[in-house]
């Protein structure tokens, strides 16, 4: 980052290459759409480039990066809410959005091994469970899980106290556990996923 600050273009390209996938993953799980996640990641890199002269050597780059990412994600969620497009994560997204779960499972049953079908179902269930958390809980959880950040680092990135992060993560994981418990214990789909499946089946029934 220090080289980027000194206007080294190659260093900036390296930085984008190194962090883009991680940022897109975080955003995809925050806003629910791959294309939007990529737009937001680009927005973050643009902000970093514009603010490069203000970067100080003492601060950890990833903490700075995810602070910007958190602000960009919050703004995006606010504008989504204004456009009444909330709860995107609870819905299917990306490639999955075009193919609802039941459809996919039916289609896949002839082509894929059972293990892969289970994997798709699990991914959908976890995504739905994540969608039921609030923005802060989700962000803290993603930073903890995929970035391996400590409470201190998450607190700096989200501009909250360490004790607030401790409580936030605890509530997030308890919520997640409660939502996923029926699936883990008895293989029962969580309500939100069940509703999606039922509505899809109804639509398909109506069409036929």
């Amino acid at each position, binding site marked *: 980052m220090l080289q980027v600050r000194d206007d080294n*273009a190659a260093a*900036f*390209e390296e930085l*984008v*290459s190194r962090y*883009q*996938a*991680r940022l*897109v*993953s975080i955003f*995809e*799980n925050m806003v629910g759409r*791959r294309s939007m*996640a*990529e737009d937001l*990641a*680009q927005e973050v*890199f*643009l902000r970093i*480039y*514009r603010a490069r002269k203000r970067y100080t050597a003492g601060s950890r780059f990833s903490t700075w990066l995810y602070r910007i990412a958190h602000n960009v994600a919050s703004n995006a969620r606010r504008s989504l809410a204004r456009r009444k497009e909330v709860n995107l994560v609870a819905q299917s997204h*990306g490639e999955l959005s075009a193919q609802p779960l039941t459809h996919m499972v039916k289609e896949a049953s002839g082509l894929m091994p059972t293990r892969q079908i289970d*994997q798709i179902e*699990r*991914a959908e*269930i*976890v*995504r739905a*469970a*994540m969608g039921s958390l609030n923005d802060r809980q989700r962000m803290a*959880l993603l930073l*903890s*899980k*995929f970035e391996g950040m*400590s*409470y201190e680092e998450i607190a700096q990135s989200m501009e909250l106290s360490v004790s607030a992060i*401790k*409580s936030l*993560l*605890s*509530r997030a*994981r*308890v919520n*997640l*556990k409660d939502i*996923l*418990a029926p699936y*883990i214990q008895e293989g029962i789909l969580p309500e939100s996923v069940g509703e999606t499946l039922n509505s899809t089946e109804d639509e398909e029934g109506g069409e036929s």
Partner: protein
Amino acid sequence: MSSQDKERPSNELLNSEVSDQDSQQLVAYLDGELDDQSSRDVERRLSDDPEFRLRLQQLQQAWDLLDELPLANRDEAFTRSTVEFVTLNARQQLAETKQWIKPGKGKTILWRLVITLLATGLGWWLGDWYFGQGHREILRDIEVISEFDQYRLTEEFEFLEKLEQSGVFDKEGASDEE
């Protein structure tokens, strides 16, 4: 309502607070965020309390399921498009900045600033000259005005002038200062 019914909500609240604290401890333990002593306390309780152990397992299982979430892969095309996007934006910003500070425009702004300052200065000076005349006269006569009651008692002005020349007022002034 019986006393048992009254106590129930407060007990439930207390239980939920204890449960929250337990959850925080368990999550912090799983995240490796507890100090040695707290970790030992949690481990001791885990070995003694099956329910506590079950909660830990459930939290861990839910955490492990997060591995199923989609993760993006590194994409060279996306890197290129991001760098191009940022470069384009930086160029636009530079062009806008240059447009704003280009020589002709800068000169015009400077002239406007000078004229505004001159007009403000002139206006202030004229206003002060026109409206300040009365005030200046009062300031000039302030000494006489402040002693006006005493001057009125004296009928001859020449007598006062003679007293001043003889130094009487100087002596009085000196004794007052003492």
